[in-house]
């Protein structure tokens, strides 16, 4: 009787109004915790990949002077086994239109037109920033490769080739190319592109791309048919595309 007279609703019912904000706060807290945790894990994964790509770049380019395909193959094998990363890398030659001293290669193109100043109209070919809208600008970071590959598609396809046996001018040639997967697979020999379709690659995730200039020794038989061999050192770009 006494309890009913004071409005007692029971052990839980009596505390219900004070529990509602407490439960709401806990839901908000754990919801935020879950979101932050997912973001944290995502960032960790990305950071780890960035650091690994840096290390991969250092392994593949060595002293920035590559002497032969065999040497590159050797460092590639080591990188493939220790990288813990899905990647496709290769040494691509710089287009002849950048420097007339560079030899032409299949797929390389000569400039058309006569005496046309480069970028005379200030255009940059940036697909993200059409010519008439924004400043053409990219940092040497994640968004830069899209612009580089648009202006210089050759940097994804003009792989340098070298003799398998440098002492034998008649030996077969091999591309300076390195894959984290089977090197003979068609995907590994299709050139590098940002939209590369690899088994297991999430198409919505942006691949991480890194460029490193390096010097490559190229064998030269002079004159053709003779046994007199020389070499020259040609600038090139090491291109690495990595993804999760």
């Amino acid at each position, binding site marked *: 009787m006494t309890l009913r007279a004071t409005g007692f609703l029971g052990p839980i019912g009596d505390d219900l109004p004070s529990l509602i904000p407490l439960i709401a706060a806990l839901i908000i807290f754990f919801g935020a915790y879950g979101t932050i945790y997912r973001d944290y894990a995502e960032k960790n994964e990305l950071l780890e990949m960035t650091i690994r790509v840096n290390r991969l770049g250092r392994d593949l380019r060595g002293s920035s002077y590559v002497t032969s395909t065999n040497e590159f193959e050797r460092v590639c094998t080591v990188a493939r086994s220790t990288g813990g990363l899905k990647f496709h890398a290769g040494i691509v030659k710089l287009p002849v239109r950048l420097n007339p001293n560079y030899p032409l290669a299949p797929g390389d193109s000569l400039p058309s037109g006569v005496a046309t100043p480069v970028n005379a109209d200030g255009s940059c070919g940036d697909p993200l920033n059409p010519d008439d809208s924004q400043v053409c600008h990219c940092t040497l970071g994640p968004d830069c490769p899209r612009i580089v590959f648009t202006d210089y598609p050759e940097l994804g396809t003009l792989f340098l080739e070298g003799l398998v046996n440098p002492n034998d001018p008649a030996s077969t040639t091999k591309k300076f190319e390195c894959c984290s997967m089977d090197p003979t697979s068609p995907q590994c020999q299709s050139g590098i592109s940002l939209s590369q379709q690899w088994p297991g690659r999430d198409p919505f995730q942006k691949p991480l791309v890194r*460029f490193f200039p390096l010097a490559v020794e190229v064998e030269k038989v002079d004159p053709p048919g003779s046994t007199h061999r020389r070499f020259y050192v040609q600038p090139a770009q090491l291109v690495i595309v990595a993804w999760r």
Partner: protein
Amino acid sequence: MICSILTATLFFFGTRYGGTVNDQALKTYQNDFVKSALKTIVYSSSPRITGQELSSSQEIDYLIARVKEDFARNGIVTDSSDDLRNNVEAILRPFVGAFDYMLYIYVPERNHFAFMQIHRSVYALRDPAQPRGALVSRSDEILQCRPTGVTVLSRGLCNTTPGAAYPVYNYAITSREACEDPAVGGYWEINLPTDDSDAISQLVQSVGKTFQASATIELFVDDPNAALNRNFSDGLDRVPARVVLILWSPTNVDSAILNRLACQCDVRQESTGTANPNEPPLVAWQSCAGQLPSN
């Protein structure tokens, strides 16, 4: 209340997490890139005859060897400068838009710049009448700089009051022998500070964050004023020099600084040159109307 504070704290740290590490990783990459670019420039080969193709040229040498030879002959990089800047441009041009750069060869002993090339982006409004600068364009300029106040082989001034707090220089005397003649009793000062190095510091400070790499090389010069320092029987003197490559995010560089470095603007021009499409293009450098455009 407590949950709100905890949640806010969680969001604060969560959003900031990894930013510093990510910046550091990007910085590592940028440093690796600039070091790799400098090595590539220094290691590259060049045909002995300008304009020939590497694979078909009869005589090939390291580009840096040609630069050394050029410097030994002229005291400045002139004959091989086109090949050098073509090479530098070719290596870095695909990334133009990502950064501007400066490459120079500096001889500290003589406080002399043997070669200096600057690439700068110039941003301008295409149509100033348009609102909000929506039509901003970027153009490239390649600058060849010859910092003044330094003559190559007779670098130095004759201090006729050695040891004095305020030295007096005799500008008419241009050689060490004449300066150190007992009748003059002067002291030949070679390493006088000039404004050139200050201008470079100014430039570096004005462009913000930079990424730099440098390498030491040895140049040789036939210098009759430094007979005492001869190291080789061929009569050439060995002078240590530094090759420095600096990258920075594209920004308008103050023309006053570039004028102090005596920069001339050049435009790179390409043409097929011949009727045969399989021949390499001709690349020529032409002055931008003979003067440095102002920004």
